[in-house]
């Protein structure tokens, strides 16, 4: 083998591994990406039952109900809309009414969001960044309340093409 042939072998091998990796990434992108929604976005977009997504917003004060065997229900609100959430398990230490929360799961046939994961960050001033951003967009950020009405107009919240990309992703 000449030096050139050897180099070609190595470059060929490198390209092959890269191609395999690219294939793996594209395949994974089709099935394992989870989109983020707020209750308003869910109401506007009519998300299909069974489609996994992340729901973010504030836990509606007074909505937390504890049932038997660690089943809990609460509502997630973002100022524009509310969505009931059902979860079974232990809530994080920092889960509180009126605080930000991100839940991962899917809607059931009755329009209840069945969460299998509930996240709250370990800091009392924390609000998940996704939640803060969407609240800011809709003018429900805490700093916006001092401003005169009409100053903060709800911005368009859309998932655009993302909706199609993620369609059919159940797990």
């Amino acid at each position, binding site marked *: *083998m000449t*030096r050139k042939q*050897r180099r070609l*072998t*190595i470059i060929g*091998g*490198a390209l092959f*591994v*890269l191609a*395999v*990796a690219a294939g*793996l*990434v594209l*395949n*994974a*992108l089709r*099935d*394992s*990406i*989870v*989109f*983020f*929604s707020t209750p308003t976005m869910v109401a506007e977009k009519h998300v299909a039952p069974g489609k996994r997504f*992340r729901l973010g917003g504030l836990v509606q004060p007074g909505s937390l109900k*504890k049932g038997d*065997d*660690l089943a809990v229900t609460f509502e997630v609100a973002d100022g524009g809309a509310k969505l009931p959430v059902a979860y*079974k*398990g*232990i*809530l994080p*230490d*920092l889960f509180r009414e009126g605080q930000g929360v991100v839940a991962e799961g899917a809607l059931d046939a009755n329009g209840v969001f069945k969460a299998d994961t509930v996240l709250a*960050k*370990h*800091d*009392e001033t924390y609000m*998940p*960044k*996704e939640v803060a*951003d*969407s609240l800011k967009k809709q003018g429900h950020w805490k700093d916006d309340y001092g401003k005169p009405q009409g100053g903060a107009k709800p911005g368009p919240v*859309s*998932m*655009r*093409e*993302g909706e199609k990309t*993620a369609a059919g992703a159940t*797990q």
Partner: protein
Amino acid sequence: MIAESGHYALVLALALALIQSTVPMLGAAQRDVALMNVGRSAALAQLLFAGLSFIALITLHVTSDFSVANVFENSHSMKPLLYKITGVWGNHEGSMLLWVSILALFGAMVAAFGNNLPLSLRARVLAVQAWVASAFYLFILTTSNPFARLATPPIEGRDLNPVLQDIGLAVHPPMLYLGYVGFSISFSFAIAALIEGRIDAAWARWVRPWTLMAWIFLTLGIAMGSYWAYYELGWGGWWFWDPVENASLMPWLAGTALLHSALVMEKRNALKVWTILLSILTFSLSLLGTFLVRSGVITSVHAFASDPTRGVFILGILVLFIGGSLTLFAGRATALKQGGLFAPISREGALVLNNLLLTVSCATVLFGTLYPVIMEALDFKLSVGAPFYNLTFGPLFALLLLMVPFGPMLAWKRGDLLAATQRLLAAGVASLVAIAIAWAWARGGSALAPLGIGLGVFVISGAIVDLVERSGITRVPFKTALHRTKGLPRSVWGTAFAHAGLGVALLGIVCETTWNSELISTLRPGDVRGLAGYEIKFDGMTQRQGPNFTEVVSTFVISEDGKQLAVMTPSKRSFSTRGMSTTEAALLTRGVSQLYVSLGDTTPDGGLAVRIYHKPLVLLIWFGPVLMAFGGLLSLSDRRLRVGAPRPARAARALQPAE
């Protein structure tokens, strides 16, 4: 006074770093020995002042001087001394100060121990090191001054985030930073070599111990962080593919590749351009990690105290260093002469494949980490989680692990794959037996699990076979073999330990994820539950007062076959200052498996929500990295001897200009 002195020391360190950035570079260009030697003294003095500044901040925290904003926000007079000290780097400003102090430490170590380096190379390395340091001193002084005073000093501080009040904070960040920042040395060496326009095998021999040292710390730092998350967060998870975890994994992957490619360069004088590029990429990923953690562009449990101006500043540093170094690389790399030849099937070829798989798997992690950021700019909100990495990083790394035992079996220049396979026959048989046993024994779980176990066993027994082959115990009399074993270089032992560590970690990961069992239930005092052959009896709760918290301790009696084993006492702590509560999980270690009890809320009717896990072989996940680090240490002790002893004949050959 102490705060002002600390601030002043930091300004002086910046001034020294600026001198160190320019004068030695000038000296190297003009071949002026006196100017070049300025770098050495400046680096040592810089460490002195950065260290003084860091000690000043520790003193402020220990003495609870709440007139300093940083102390007020992160400390409390009732906090135990250990957490007063570790709280120094439990916040943004302090952790950046730790970052530059470690950077200064590494610079000073090159200055102090780099006597065997050519004078001009050492001068340039120290100058490049000082460029990085200057940027970060400026960052701290302009955006994140830890010594800022408050106009009206409060009586009491706001306490450290309770989650961070743990021994983990004492170990994890310093270890991780020693790793992250340690890669700055190989970066500086790479840039210095590009400026010199000369690179050879000797370069790799100088760089490798530094890279190895950084790699050892990073390995331990990541493992420690993972174990900390496991016991502290109360979910029993040990890796979440969180962006910040990825930020530490990426330099580790690139650094591991660098270790291996530097080996090829050292032994065979090949892969020079690639090794330089990897040095640059590894430190660039460290910088990227710092940016991701400090800027708050990514949703993460670690993104505390983030601030857009800081993010923009670090992004500037990132662009400057990565862009600058890659431009320099593009301009100079072609001038570097190509080195030794090798056949595709050879030790070099195997190491090239190792590098390929490591960098490509690193690229998939990078993609998964940055994809949400890119998509957010396009107004899509999404998250990339474990399923993505399982489908991309997983197969690539499995392939890499499959290759690991073959590498050391192949000869340099031209290897014999068939002979290597024959020698690995024993390892293959061991692996098949393991698969068969796992298959027969397993109840439920993924069908991939027995294969994973087989792969782990293959990697471990491959490492053992390598040692056995080298000692020749199967071919020569026992005494000769023993003699040979003693004579084996430590780096051979290092390789075997590090590779076996990978297999051990894989075994732990596969067993924990496949066969862990979980029980979530509401218990009342006297209730008994069973899990994985253990009986768990809830005895009741007691109140306790800690230094800066109150604690409700629950008592669980664990027995097996009617015999009492242990009492586990998980607790809920509430920290009054921040109004936060944390859950302290209780762990019971049985061999390398663990029973894990974590608490939820109490229900109105007197029940207690409890989460109990049985995690089989979970400790192997962290024993693996410890073995790897130990292997690295063995290899380091081998190499230091060689680096320390100059060999004129060899050096004369190695130091020929490459032009």
